[in-house]
């Protein structure tokens, strides 16, 4: 058995990858992600209403958004944009806030927009850890974790 292949498959499995084709031109899909009055129209589960939205869409810029659930509970999400390449790529950190407004476990979201005629193929990849190096997106999250892990062990011993 090729163990390398099975490990790669497993690594991908532990991170989130969602691909969807939208029947709309790429610039429109990109705008829907990067213009606050457009993002509030769809960003959140069914029945959720965005009650606050602040997005500073540029590398290093932050976003903070509040959505209200159908039951009336408020959920805050926040992050920082790492890359903004119009109209093809967005990279940002993402975390939910707890009741005290403290961000929870931080993830790294990479969204790519590929043009297919008048349609747009969107791929969302969410890594369970933020990583500065993104030479290989599918592996970066784990690779950086391993590095940090090695540092951690070295300090402990």
């Amino acid at each position, binding site marked *: 058995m090729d163990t390398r292949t099975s490990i790669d498959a497993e690594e991908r499995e532990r991170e989130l990858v969602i691909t969807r084709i939208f029947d709309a031109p790429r610039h429109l899909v990109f705008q829907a992600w990067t213009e606050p009055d457009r993002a509030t129209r769809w960003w959140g589960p069914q029945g959720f209403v965005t009650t606050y939205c602040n997005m500073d869409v540029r590398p290093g810029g932050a976003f903070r958004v509040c959505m209200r659930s159908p039951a009336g509970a408020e959920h805050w999400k926040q992050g920082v944009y790492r890359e903004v390449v119009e109209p093809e790529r967005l990279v940002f950190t993402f*975390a939910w806030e707890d009741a005290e407004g403290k961000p929870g476990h931080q993830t790294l979201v990479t969204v790519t927009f590929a043009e297919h005629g008048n349609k747009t193929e969107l791929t969302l990849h969410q890594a*369970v850890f933020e990583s500065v190096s993104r030479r290989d997106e599918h592996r970066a999250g784990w690779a950086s974790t391993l590095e940090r892990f090695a540092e951690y062990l070295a300090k402990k011993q």
Partner: protein
Amino acid sequence: MSPDRLSTTFSALADPTRRAILARLVSGEVSVTELAEPFAMSLPAVSKHLKVLESAGLIARSREAQWRPCRLEAGPLKDAADWLEHYRRFWEQSFDRLADYLGELQAKEEKDGHEDEH
């Protein structure tokens, strides 16, 4: 679940050997010697991995039996899987709404375009 615990779980999972150890334990309790067999690794190296998994709460080691077998503790793994599943649902539902919204936008553009022609 606290973010710290999630981070600990993901850190522990971020190593192929440790994931292979967990996969092995799915079938039941195993001794450290048996766990070390498939890996080209010394017993102390395997023990190090086991310590990481144990402190992350992913495995437990029996204190009763002399050979102190390892067993899988499913709780944190399930929490991590649930957490990822929560994000998947969040995006998939958002994308359903995005598809509807893009449809609306284009219908409006088309209508406005026709009106401009008159």
